[in-house]
């Protein structure tokens, strides 16, 4: 037999159908449907107000939609509508099987706890009790995200923005999630710091075979990270497809405008 070859399985990990969310009279997103499989990286692109963050918040269990179904292949119950799970079951699934990387590390980190405690916390939340093992895992993850392990006890505010973001990445991957949501993960960073974080994320995603849903308004980030794209405008998905197809041969007027508006250097 030939060497084992990693292929993406056909069964979806997350299935979204008819997702609609309004804020009063304001449309958040309307009739959004898609699937994501293990190992796939889906980018959601569009300008501010296009609804991409609304979609991300709804599908990650943080914002109940007005209509539609969001089903996740949970390890305990199989494919389930996440908003029909009991609150404790949903929270447990979020903790065990998902990660969420915020644009602002302050939203994703506990600023009063040390960097190391931030990374180790998900393990403790999942019932880890062996201090030595958790510390070893924390050190391993700090190394993986290229942080100086001697600073394990420093508070996040003593780290630079790029380093804080890497702590957040480690905190969201240490427990071995199957699906990770990322909201503009490189948004607030200098370009060189952004580049390094993107390289790191790319490598981790490939090595861990993660499914990732990443929201970004930056086409360069989308091209680098995502296998496929969903272009949003005014709450609707206007185009979907392979990343290079959407960027090199966009079909919808808005996608064409979006791609042609990217500044070249």
């Amino acid at each position: 037999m030939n060497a084992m070859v990693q292929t993406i399985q056909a069964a979806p990990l997350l299935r979204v159908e008819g997702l609609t969310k309004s804020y009063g009279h304001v449309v958040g997103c309307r009739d959004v449907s898609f699937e994501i499989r293990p190992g796939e990286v889906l980018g959601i692109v569009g300008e501010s107000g296009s609804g991409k963050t609304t979609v991300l918040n709804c599908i990650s269990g943080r914002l109940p939609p007005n209509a539609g179904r969001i089903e996740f292949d949970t390890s305990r119950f199989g494919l389930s509508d996440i908003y029909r799970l009991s609150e404790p079951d949903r929270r447990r699934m979020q903790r065990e099987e998902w990660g969420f990387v915020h644009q602002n590390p302050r939203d994703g980190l506990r600023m009063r706890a040390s960097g190391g405690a931030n990374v180790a916390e998900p393990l403790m939340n999942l019932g880890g009790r062996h201090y030595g093992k958790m510390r070893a895992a924390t050190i391993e993850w700090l190394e993986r995200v290229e942080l100086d392990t001697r600073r394990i006890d420093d508070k996040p505010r003593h780290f630079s923005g790029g380093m804080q973001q890497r702590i957040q990445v480690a905190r969201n991957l240490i427990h071995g999630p199957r699906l990770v949501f990322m909201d503009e993960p490189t948004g607030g960073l200098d370009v060189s710091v952004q580049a390094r974080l993107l390289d790191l994320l790319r490598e981790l995603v490939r090595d861990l075979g993660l499914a990732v849903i990443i929201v970004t308004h930056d086409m360069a980030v989308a091209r680098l990270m995502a296998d496929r794209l969903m272009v949003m405008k005014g709450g609707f998905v206007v185009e979907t497809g392979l990343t290079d197809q959407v960027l090199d041969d966009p079909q919808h007027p808005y996608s064409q405008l979006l791609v042609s508006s990217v500044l070249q250097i």
Partner: protein
Amino acid sequence: MSSPLIIVEDLAKTFVLHNADDATIPVFAGLKLEVAPGECVVLSGESGAGKSTLMRSIYGNYLPTQGAVRVLHDGAYVDITRALPFQVMDVRRRTLGYVSQFLRVIPRIPTLQLVMEPLLENGVDVEEARERAETLLAALRLPRAHWGLPPATFSGGEQQRVNIARSFIRNYPVMLLDEPTASLDAENRAIVVQLIRQALDRGAALIGIFHDQDVRDAVATRLFTVNDFKAAA
């Protein structure tokens, strides 16, 4: 005769530029092409005839207006124009390779790592991947001192060789070559010709665009004139 590895059926491509008064640019229509194992079909036609557009449509990079592109993958034909993204990704990872004129990769990753990447994605272990990458880079005469550096600052010809290494490191059953020798000197062209011949010998199906007459003569098993399927404007 063994079954073709690529079947292009009734393919049409027209670009519609919505932000330029919906201008339409018809490229080709009713295009048919089959490529069998061991064949190297060279696309001919003047600049603007649609050679690259055809290549990109076969790779799934451009979305054809009509028709099908069937690629033999795991013993069954996958229509690239209709397959789901994850299926196209799988075909690209294991069956369908593409060498473009330009290196469009991550500018910051060291060269050796870039060349190893397609193997790592296919589950080859790190040591073997490194060995094969080093062998290929050496064969392409890329100075060893460059291997640890990202290719962003390399010359055009050096970047092109990294690009070629990234594609030829996997023995793809089907390869699309869009002017792979464009910025290479005669000696390096000869090396690429050799790589192409090796691929043909092991039964790969190739479609290429070569402006260089010597290379074309050295590898083409037949020519395919894209102009014959010129779409009416």
